[in-house]
C-alpha cells in the first residue's frame, strides 16, 4: 500500500495523498492526475520526472493550489507539515504561498513582470511577508541579489527583466522566491530553457542556497541526468500517476517499473551499439485513458489483470516502491534481462569514468 511510502520519511514536510485533478475541456474531461502519491522529507531534494503531459507541473501547481478553470482538484489530500492545504480558505492559503512554499519556473524571462525592476519585484516578495515598507525592502533586495552571486547587484536591481540574460534572470527569480525563506521550493524545470554550462551553475546555486535555509526541494524535470546529479530521491510519473519512487541511486541503477526501465534504456549512451531501445506505442490521450494500469498497452510484461485495476505503489525493497503488479507478494518482479543496457551502468564503466576523472 501507498501508506508504507509515507512511513519511510520520519517527519515529512509535504505529503501528497491520492490526488485527483481533472480538466474540463471542450474535448471532454482530461483526467490529468489519477491518484498521485508523493512524499518529501525535511531537507530532502526530491526529483519528479516524466515526459510532457504526464502531470508533473499539474502536481506542482496543485500543491500551491494554483489550478484554475477549467482544472479542478477532485480528491485527495495535500499535507504540508500535517496541515491539509486543500481544506484552507483562499486567504489562509495565501499565507503559505511564498512564505512556506515557493516556486521557480521554467522560463525565467517570462516569469518576471516586464513592467517592474528586478529590485522592486524582490522587494515586494520581502515586503508581503515581513510587513515592511517597500523602501526598506529595496536595500534588502540588493543584499539578496548578492547572495545569488550576481556580480553587480546595485545595478541589476534597477534593471528590467528584458535586460538580463536567461541565467541572470533565473538567479533573480531564485532570489525573489527564496527571500521569504520558504520551507519548500518547487522548481519547475528550472534549467530546461538554459544552456548546459549555465544549467550547472544554477543547479549548484539552488541546492546550496536551499541547504542554507534548510528547506526542501521538489525538482520537476524531464532530464534524468539532472536528477542523478542533484536529487536524493526520485518519483517517476507516467500519465497522471507516480509509478516509481525511491532513492535516486536505487531507481536509476535498479529501475523496477517497466516504464522507468524503458525510459533509461531509450537514452543515447556511450556504448553506441545498434539502434536505441524504444518504448512501443505512444503516450495515451488522458481524455480516454486506458483502464487499470495506464502503462499496460505499452508494457512488455503486461498481463490480463493489468487492464483491470490500477496498481498501488508496492514495495520493491526497503524505501523503493513501484506501481506494478509484478511486485505483488509471491511474484519475482521484473526480469533482470537487459539490465546491463542501462546507461547508468554504461556510464559507470571503469574506463569511461577513469578518463573523465583524470581530466579533472
Amino acid at each position, binding site marked *: 500500500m501507498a501508506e508504507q511510502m509515507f512511513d519511510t520519511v520520519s517527519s515529512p514536510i509535504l505529503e501528497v495523498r491520492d490526488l485527483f485533478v481533472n480538466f474540463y475541456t471542450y474535448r471532454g474531461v482530461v483526467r490529468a492526475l489519477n491518484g498521485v502519491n508523493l512524499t518529501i522529507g525535511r531537507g530532502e531534494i526530491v526529483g519528479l520526472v516524466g515526459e510532457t503531459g504526464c502531470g508533473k507541473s499539474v502536481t506542482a501547481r496543485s500543491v*500551491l493550489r*494554483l489550478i484554475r478553470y477549467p482544472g479542478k482538484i477532485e480528491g485527495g489530500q495535500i499535507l504540508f507539515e500535517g496541515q491539509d492545504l486543500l481544506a484552507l480558505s*483562499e486567504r489562509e492559503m*495565501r*499565507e*503559505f*504561498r*511564498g*512564505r512556506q512554499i*515557493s*516556486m521557480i*519556473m521554467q*522560463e525565467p524571462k*517570462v*516569469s*518576471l*513582470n*516586464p*513592467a*517592474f525592476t528586478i529590485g522592486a519585484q524582490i522587494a*515586494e*516578495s520581502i515586503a*508581503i*511577508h515581513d510587513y515592511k515598507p517597500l523602501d526598506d525592502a529595496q536595500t534588502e533586495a540588493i543584499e539578496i541579489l548578492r547572495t545569488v552571486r550576481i556580480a553587480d547587484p546595485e545595478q541589476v536591481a534597477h534593471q*528590467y527583466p*528584458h535586460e538580463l540574460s536567461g541565467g541572470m534572470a533565473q538567479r533573480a*527569480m531564485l532570489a*525573489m*522566491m527564496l527571500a*521569504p525563506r520558504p520551507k519548500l521550493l518547487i522548481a519547475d524545470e528550472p534549467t530546461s530553457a538554459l544552456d548546459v554550462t549555465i544549467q550547472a551553475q544554477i543547479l549548484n546555486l539552488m541546492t546550496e542556497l536551499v541547504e542554507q535555509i534548510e528547506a526542501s526541494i521538489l525538482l520537476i524535470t524531464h532530464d534524468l541526468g539532472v536528477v542523478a546529479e542533484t536529487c536524493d530521491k526520485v518519483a517517476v510519473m507516467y500519465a497522471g500517476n507516480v509509478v516509481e519512487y525511491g532513492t535516486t541511486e536505487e531507481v536509476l541503477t535498479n529501475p523496477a517499473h517497466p516504464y522507468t526501465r524503458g525510459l533509461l534504456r531509450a537514452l543515447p549512451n556511450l556504448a553506441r551499439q545498434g539502434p536505441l531501445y524504444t518504448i512501443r506505442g505512444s503516450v495515451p490521450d488522458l481524455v480516454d485513458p486506458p483502464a487499470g494500469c495506464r502503462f499496460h498497452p505499452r508494457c512488455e510484461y503486461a498481463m490480463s489483470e493489468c487492464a483491470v485495476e490500477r496498481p498501488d505503489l508496492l514495495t520493491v525493497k526497503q524505501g523503493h516502491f513501484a506501481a506494478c503488479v509484478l511486485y505483488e507478494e509471491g511474484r519475482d518482479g521484473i526480469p533482470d534481462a537487459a539490465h546491463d543496457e542501462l546507461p547508468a551502468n554504461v556510464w559507470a564503466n571503469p574506463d569511461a569514468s577513469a578518463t573523465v576523472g583524470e581530466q579533472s
Partner: protein
Amino acid sequence: MILKCLEHELGVARPGLKDERARAGRVIRPPQVTGFITLDSIIAGNWEAFRSAVMHLIMPAFVLGYFSTAAITRITRSSMLDVLGQEYIEAARVKGVKERVVIYRHALRNAMIPTVTIIGVTYGGLLEGSVLTESIFSWPGLGRYATSSFLFLDFPAVMGATLLIALTFSLANLVVDIVYAFLNPRIGVEGI
C-alpha cells in the same frame, strides 16, 4: 472627456461663429478672457452663465464619452485577458500577493500598454464623433462647422477644418507615444 469639453469650447472660440454663439446665449455672456465660456464665467463670477454652459455641454459630452468608453473597455478587457494568462502573473500569485494586487498592480500595469495606444486612436473617434454629436445637439463647434462647410462646399473652410482635426489627432498620437515609452520599459529595445 475634459479634453473634449475644451475642444468644444475651442470651436466656440473660433472666429466666424460669433453669430451662432450670440444666439446660443440667452443669459448674459461673461466678458471674453480665455474664450472658453465655462472658464470666462468662473472668472467673472457669473454662476448663471456657468451653469447654463455646463448644462449645454453635459449631454453632448456624455454621448461622446460613452461612445469611446466602449472601445477602451473592450481593448482593456482583451489585453487584460492576455496578460492574466502570462507566467509572471502566476509567479506573483506564488509569492503570495493578494489577488486584488495581482490584478490592479501586476496585470493592469502591463495591460495598460496597448490600452494607451488605443486611447490615441479613440481621440480620433472623439473628433469624428463630434461631427455627428454637434449636429444632433446643434452645438456650434468645430464638428458642425466642418459639416456645414462640407455641405456648402466652402473649400477653404473644409481644408482648414480638416487640417486642424488632423493636426490635433496627430498631436494626440504623439502624446500617446511619449506616455507609451514611459509605461513600457522595453521600448528602448523593441522601439520604432
